[in-house]
Every structure is written in C-alpha cells, then in structure tokens.
C-alpha cells in the first residue's frame, strides 16, 4: 500500500464523494466525510515523511510511463500542501455537523458533503499531479464544487457572489487552457518534467512567451491577486461558515502553488524572471494588494468581509515573498502559506461559531460579545494577533522571515512597507476587539450563550496550533526550507 500513497491521497476523497449519495442520511454522511478527511490527512503525513526521507516520489498512473501516461510527482512542496489542505479540512469538519444543520436546508445537506469531498479531492489532485492538463481537469473539479458550495449560503448575495466567481474563475481556467495548449504546440508534451526539459530550446519564441503570459494571468485570477481579486470578498463573506473556513485557508494557496510550480519547475526560474519583469510587477501588485485591501478592511461593517479583505492582503504578502526570487524569499512565502492557513482557518471558524449563536456577523452585533462568548472571542483575539504578527504567534514567524528575506536581497523599502502593512492590520482588528470588549451589548440581543463544544474544540485546536508553531518553529522551518531548496535545485 505504501507505494500507492500518492494516488490514494486523491482517490480516497474522490471516490468517497459519490459514495455519499449511497449513504443518504446527513448524520452518517458527516461522520463518513470526517473519517475520509482524517484518512487523507494521515496519508499526507505519511507522504511527507516518505519524501523528506527518500526524495521525490514518482507514480505512473495506468502503468504507462510519462510522457505517454500521466504521472504523479511528489516532492516536499506537494507534500506540504497536501498536509495543509487535509489538516484544515479535517479540523473544520469537526464543527461541520451542527453548522451545516443550522445553515443549510435539510434535503441539501448530503449534497453539501458530496461537494465538500469533491473540492477536497480537486485540490489534492492539483497539488499532487505532474501533468499540466491533469492540473486543468482537477482545477475544474475543485472550482465547480466551490461555486456550488458558495452558492449554498443563506443570503441571496451568495448566489451573486458565486456567479461572479464562476465567470472570473472560468475566464482564468480558459486562459490556463490556452497557455497549456500553446506550450503543447511548441513542445509536444504535457508532462511537467518533460516540459521543463523541452522548453529551453523554444523559450525564445513568441508563442512560448504568450503561453507564459496567459498561464500567469489565468493563475492570478484564481489567486485573487490585486487587481484580479474582485470575486473573493463577496464569495468568502456570503458562503456558509464551514465553506468560508475551508476555502479561505486553502483555495488561494493552491493557486499560489500552481504559480510557483509553473514558474520554477516548468519554465525555470531564470526564464520566468527575466523574460517578463515579473519580480517588479509582482512586488508592486503584492504591496498594492496589501495596502488597498487592508484599508478597505478598515471600513467594513461585516466582519466576514473584513477578514476576507484581510486575506487579499495576506496573499499580497505571499506574492511579495515570491517576487524576491531567492530561496529565502520562497521559504518565507511557503511559511506564510502554512501560517495563514492556520490563522484564517481559526478566525473564520470562530466567526462561524458567532454566526451559529447570534445569526449575524455584523460588527454592531458584536457589542458585548467578549463577555457572553469569552472563548470564542479569545480565539478571535489570538487569531488577530497572529495576523498582525505579534511575537509568540505564527504570524510573527512568517513576517519575520519575510522581512529578513527582503533585507537580505537589499530591498529595504519593501521591508519597511511590510511592517507598515502590519500596522493597518492593528487598526482593523482593533475595531472588532473594541466592539466585543468595550461596548455594552445592545438592548434587544438577550441571552447569548457560549458556542457549543463542536465549534470550540476545532477552533481551539487551530488557535493552539497558531501558538505552538509560533513558538516551536523547527518543523515548519525544516519542511519549508527543504521545499524551497528543492525548487531551486530542480529548475534549469
């Protein structure tokens, strides 16, 4: 079985999804989904250990060797991402039973879990495959289930948000398809490893240049890089709570993975950064994203919207790290990916608890919540501290390495701007703290109890992870450094 781990990682959730239809009752289906997600998590841990011990794992699907067949190629980066995705998925599912019962109509609950497993399988398929077209197929599996999941939100604006995401996402996917087609035309292959070998000889043609352009733009649409981020705030704000917690922590990471994979492993670092002024472009867009999004966050009255804009800002940070173009910069980006998943997962899940108890996430309804829901608000406070980058939280660790990488590269202004961005984070998180702790509850709100254990347990698992990995950074550093070095070693 051990040799088949790479394919099991994807197959287990993929085939579990239709199996849910056979199971019928939502209670059973939830348990089944949770077990499947936990199994996927264990597989990802095993894969990571295998890769760290023995190097890149190659798996030929159908028994056909690449490039005639599709192959799975697992290196540290893939394994890290599988770990993040499955880990967040499992923890979030712990709270899903009661959350979904409250937020979604009964006859649709089973369908919710099917779609959830499909999006999980889709994401895992994207991060484990070594074939460019396979990426497209699984990207669409993930995207379609995400559109449907978001549209299940109660508010009618969820429908509109989902539609916008569908249009923008499909344009992005079509661009990626065009890019893959152009690359195929010039090299004759779809396998990423093979492409990396064959692209250098045709690298100077205009066609490859165009292919590169379309791929990057397509991926950036999915990544919600400023200014292509327009779909994200509404989609995160109006989706069901569990969906937001899951997607916010994982969806854009997958797009970022694609960006890194294509620019480093397929096109090669030297091509990617010299053909187009990608470094300058990305650092500018990244910083613009940080500031524009953070400032918009300050004016939001809906807390989910606020944190959604904050996510756009965090993606900006990740892009800045990526644009530095050194191993240190890439390592900082990967670290921030890991940490952001923990931060936002905790925050949105806690918001889900609030939604469950008071039925709203408007800032004005947060008054006095500090006393009525102490554990939940404490979780939000810790998560916010992590966002700002206070020492002892994961947020601090990744900001530290980001600034370090910038300084190492001689980019002093960038380092300063990164720190300024954190100040803005203080402003928008203070608004929540102020409302919850320093304002008296409104007259009509009545008795609000603390969130049930189903919510508190997973929220605090994530919050503790925030603090744990903020203090003991050995594991996260070791893995991200290995991943970053692997990428630099591989490319031509």
């Amino acid at each position, binding site marked *: 079985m051990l040799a088949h781990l790479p394919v099991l990682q994807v197959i287990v959730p993929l085939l579990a999804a239709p199996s849910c239809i056979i199971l019928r009752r939502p209670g059973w289906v939830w348990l089944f989904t949770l077990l499947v997600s936990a199994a996927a998590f264990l597989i990802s841990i095993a894969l990571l250990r295998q890769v760290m011990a023995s190097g890149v794992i190659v798996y030929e699907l159908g028994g056909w060797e690449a490039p005639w067949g599709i192959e799975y190629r697992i290196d540290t980066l893939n394994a890290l991402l599988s770990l993040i995705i499955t880990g967040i998925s499992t923890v979030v599912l712990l709270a899903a039973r009661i959350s979904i019962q409250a937020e979604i109509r009964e006859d649709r609950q089973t369908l919710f879990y099917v779609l959830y497993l499909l999006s999980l399988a889709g994401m895992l398929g994207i991060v484990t495959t070594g074939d460019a077209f396979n990426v*497209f197929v699984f990207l669409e599996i993930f995207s379609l289930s995400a559109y449907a999941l978001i549209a299940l939100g109660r508010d009618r604006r969820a429908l509109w948000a989902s*539609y916008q995401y569908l249009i923008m996402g499909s*344009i992005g*996917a079509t661009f990626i398809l*065009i890019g893959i*087609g152009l690359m195929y035309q010039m090299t004759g292959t779809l396998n990423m490893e093979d492409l990396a070998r064959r692209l250098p000889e045709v690298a100077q043609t205009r066609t490859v240049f165009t292919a590169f352009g379309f791929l990057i733009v397509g991926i950036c649409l999915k990544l919600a890089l400023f200014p292509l981020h327009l779909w994200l705030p509404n989609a995160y704000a109006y989706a069901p709570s569990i969906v937001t917690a899951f997607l916010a922590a994982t969806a854009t990471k997958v797009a970022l993975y694609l960006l890194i994979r294509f620019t480093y492993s397929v096109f090669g670092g030297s091509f990617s950064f010299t053909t187009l002024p990608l470094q300058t472009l990305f650092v500018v867009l990244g910083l613009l994203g940080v500031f524009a999004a953070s400032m918009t966050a300050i004016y939001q009255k809906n807390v989910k919207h606020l944190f959604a804009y904050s996510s756009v800002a965090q993606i900006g940070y990740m892009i800045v790290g990526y644009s530095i173009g050194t191993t240190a910069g890439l390592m900082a980006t990967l670290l921030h990916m890991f940490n952001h998943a923990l931060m936002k997962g905790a925050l949105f899940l806690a918001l889900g608890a609030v939604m469950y108890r008071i039925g709203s996430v408007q800032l004005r309804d947060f008054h006095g919540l500090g006393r009525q829901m102490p554990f939940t608000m404490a979780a939000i406070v810790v998560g916010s501290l992590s966002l700002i980058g206070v020492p002892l939280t994961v947020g601090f660790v990744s900001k530290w390495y980001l600034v370090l990488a910038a300084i190492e590269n001689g980019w002093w202004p960038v380092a300063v701007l990164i720190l300024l961005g954190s100040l803005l984070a203080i402003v928008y998180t203070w608004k929540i703290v102020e409302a919850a702790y320093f304002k008296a509850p409104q007259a009509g709100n009545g008795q609000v109890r603390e969130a049930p254990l189903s919510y508190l347990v997973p929220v605090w698992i994530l919050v503790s992870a925030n603090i744990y990995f903020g203090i003991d950074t050995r594991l996260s550093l070791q893995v991200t450094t290995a991943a970053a070095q692997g990428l630099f070693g591989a490319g031509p």
Partner: protein
Amino acid sequence: MFLGLYNYWIVVVLMMIGFYIVIAHGNLVKKIVGLNIFQTSVFIFYISVSNIDGGTAPILTEGFNRYSNPLPHVLILTAIVVGIATTALGLALAMRIREAYGSIEEEEIQQRDNREC
C-alpha cells in the same frame, strides 16, 4: 506566412468575440453564452494544432498511414465536458438569481444589493 497561419488568426478573432461578450454584457445569460463561444473557439484552436496535411481521422484503417494527432482530440473531449458542466452550473445560478432578485441584469442586481447594505 499568411497562408500558413490564417487559420490561427481566425480562431483568435473568434476567441476575442466570445471574451468580449463575457465581460462587456450585463445580462447573466448572455455572459454564459459568451463564455461558451470563448471556450468553443479555444477548442477549434487545439484541433487546428492537431491537424496534419494529408492525414485522416485517428482511427487505424487499412490503407492509411498518416493520421491526425490524437492527443489534442482527447484533451478537447475533456474540455468540452468541462465546458458544459460550467455552463450548466452558471445557468442554474442565473435562474436562482432571477428568482431571488427578480432580474438578471448585472446593474439592477448591484443596485438592489447597494440599497440593502
């Protein structure tokens, strides 16, 4: 050169028509039609790549030994399916939006949302 590449240029024009319809129009159903046209044009592009002068359909038959490249055909079969899946979902969303908002024009929907906030 023109003779060698005219096929691709026509395809690009078709793609841009589809793309324009998607982003310029406000009617939700029209956007999806545009998306469909955009994607179909991409398919035509891929199939053009696979074409070989003097070749025939990639089904092994007596008497022929030059065949069109089967790989893009496979990719496009998959892409067509993905396209219809997206179209179906998009249309379903448009129908739900019509029910919930009473309209499927982008501007009207945004107006109603703004009035609520």
